[in-house]
């Protein structure tokens, strides 16, 4: 407010500095013509009309959803995978602020930003799927289905979105140079982190618990009373792996912004995360077998779905776990990143297995998404990436703000 006036003389200077990366508007526009932006523009050219079609023509015209398959790609990928992959925010924030792993501080802000944007675009994806998205606030203000796991998910995602916004506020206030607010926001950090961990524990597991009501529809190898714990544990693995994955992108794409972090230091952190990833994945691997033993479905392992289950558990849980362990042992950062990518793919596969691939596994007619559903999903991911880039290029996310020193 009054503070930015002291730095930039006119709103125009402020805009040039804060919005146009220190360039004139014309130079900024010219700089936008890059291959990535051209691809993004092409995607939007297809995506926006399809989005309009979705909201004017309805779900039947734009999706392959049916009475038998009420949930499709938008729930299976955009919502379930989106939430799991955005778990890095709470994992890193609790590690640094609560458990005292302070050296991981440089990774907290990118993780929280990914978390916040991840959840934000989950809600955007959900709005495409809901029959009447304008009633999104109904569970909060109009009618309360308190016996529903979905009620818990709805509330917690809304609250967690708010918490993550608060957690990210210091970066926004530094960008805007609002010192007083920045100080207040920092005060909230511990409380927000604790609240964020509670909310994350509950809604990450609740997304799995949703499927507790679908015995006989979700394949028995994936349907288990342990599913809330499986979803939570795998979300932690996904969160850690996404932070690793992002650190790779951040390094390549936002190298200029990484000014005051030593690459060797960053490598040490990545190896540390890799170690955590190995431990979490090993736990998850154990839980998967525990769930199988609990359901006593050993006989199903020799069926085609059994082979698919083994593929998921060995190829996308144990394999990345071993890759993480090997990479950490041999101090190979590149291998940690490969394991991170494989883990992310594995969690995506798991969520799709539960919600789409094995859902109504014994039905004669199976759902496959309409091309428009893919277009909307790709468009949402693209807009998410553009937003992430826009923010990272302006706000102190990957680097400390020169006037504020190390981030909290």
């Amino acid at each position, binding site marked *: 407010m009054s503070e930015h006036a002291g730095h930039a003389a006119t709103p125009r200077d402020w805009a040039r500095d804060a919005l146009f990366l220190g360039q004139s508007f014309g130079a900024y526009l010219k700089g936008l013509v890059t291959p990535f932006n051209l691809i993004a523009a092409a995607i939007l050219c297809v995506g926006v009309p399809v989005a309009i079609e979705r909201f004017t023509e309805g*779900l039947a015209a734009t999706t392959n959803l049916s009475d038998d398959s009420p949930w499709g790609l938008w729930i299976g990928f955009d919502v379930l995978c989106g939430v799991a992959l955005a778990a890095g925010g709470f994992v890193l924030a609790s590690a640094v602020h609560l458990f005292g792993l302070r050296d991981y501080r440089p990774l907290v802000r990118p993780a929280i930003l990914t978390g916040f944007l991840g959840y934000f675009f989950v809600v955007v994806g959900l709005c495409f799927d809901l029959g009447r998205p304008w009633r999104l606030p109904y569970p909060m203000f109009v009618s309360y289905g308190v016996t529903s796991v979905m009620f818990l998910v709805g509330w917690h995602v809304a609250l967690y979105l708010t918490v993550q916004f608060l957690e990210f506020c210091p970066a926004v206030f530094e960008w805007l140079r609002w010192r007083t607010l920045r100080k207040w926001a920092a005060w909230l950090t511990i409380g927000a982190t604790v609240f964020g961990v509670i909310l994350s524990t509950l809604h990450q597991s609740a997304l799995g618990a949703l499927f507790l009501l679908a015995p006989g529809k979700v394949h028995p190898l994936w349907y288990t009373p342990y599913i809330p714990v499986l979803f939570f544990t795998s979300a932690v693995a996904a969160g850690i792996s996404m932070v690793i994955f992002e650190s790779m992108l951040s390094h390549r794409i936002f190298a200029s912004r990484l000014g005051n972090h030593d690459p060797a230091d960053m490598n040490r952190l990545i190896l540390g995360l890799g170690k955590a990833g190995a431990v979490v994945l090993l736990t998850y691997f154990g839980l998967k077998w525990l769930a199988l033993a609990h359901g006593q479905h050993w006989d199903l392992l020799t069926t085609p779905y059994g082979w698919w289950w083994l593929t998921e558990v060995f190829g996308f849980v144990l394999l990345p776990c071993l890759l993480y362990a090997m990479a950490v042992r041999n101090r190979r950062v590149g291998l940690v990143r490969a394991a991170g990518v494989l883990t992310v793919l594995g969690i995506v596969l798991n969520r799709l297995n539960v919600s789409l691939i094995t859902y109504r596994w014994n039905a004669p007619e199976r759902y496959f998404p309409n091309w428009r559903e893919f277009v909307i999903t790709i468009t949402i991911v693209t807009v998410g990436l553009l937003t992430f880039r826009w923010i990272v290029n302006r706000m102190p996310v990957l680097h400390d703000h020169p006037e504020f020193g190390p981030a*909290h």
Partner: protein
Amino acid sequence: MSVNRRDFLRIAGAAGVAGATSTVAAGSAPATRVSDDWMGMLTDLTLCVGCRKCEWACKDANQLPGQQPIDAYDDKSVFERRRRTDAINLTVVNRYDPAAPGEQPVYVKTQCMHCFEPACASACLVAAFRKTSEGPVLYNENVCIGCRYCMVACPFEMPAYTYDDPFSPAVRKCTMCFDRITKEGGVPACAATCPVEAITFGKRSELLALARDKIAAEPDKYVNHIYGEHEAGGTCWLYIAGKPFDELGFRTDIAATPYPELTRGFLSAVPLVLTLWPALLMGAYAFTQRRDELARAEAEPGENAATEPQPGDHDE
């Protein structure tokens, strides 16, 4: 004060949102409240001739799109493929051809089963479904946000959605003609129309007795299974048949556990997490702070009276 299971879930759920302190009363929940006054239906599949007049009557009573003259329902070609209930057909009849030559085909009418403890109601995040004191399970379009979790949850896959409606899509399902049966002498349209009286309307408790009597009287004609007596904790709609139900398109893997039980364990853990996590996490935080304090005191022996660091601004 006795807290029944439903109230318990309500409390647990409310705590999950409000962050209220735990009211966990670990212990077994009282048995389901089942009312002998609930109305129900009994479909005797040995009587059904597949005339589909019930489909016509249903569409007529609910004023659904796609209605045809009653004669058009004689068309047998619809039996070529298995149909399910959808947004404009709240009940459908399917034909199950005999395995051996000489036997008669079996016609099966399906519609909402009106569970004692409906999965749809326990799934709905805006409480759009309710079990009425009369027995039918009703849906309230005015609060529905269209998440379709009810359709995922329903073990009988009965709720359907008007996907083709862009601006006011809604779930549609059988209401057991609630508006009719709550009037004196009212009978659901399908039961009133059935020319062979394959569908009987009455109190569910009496229909169960009737079904038992029928099976006992002609044990060769009926299989000894009343579908809906125990499935999903019991349903108001009951079926008896002359063939095993798994041969007639019925799901026979549905346990007797009421569906809300499936998420009860998870929901009762919610207040626990809300109560325990803050203590554990703040404990970890305090531990970390203390460790740093000691480390600092050790590093600077002169200043052992380290000031208390403020939350959130450590290291600054």
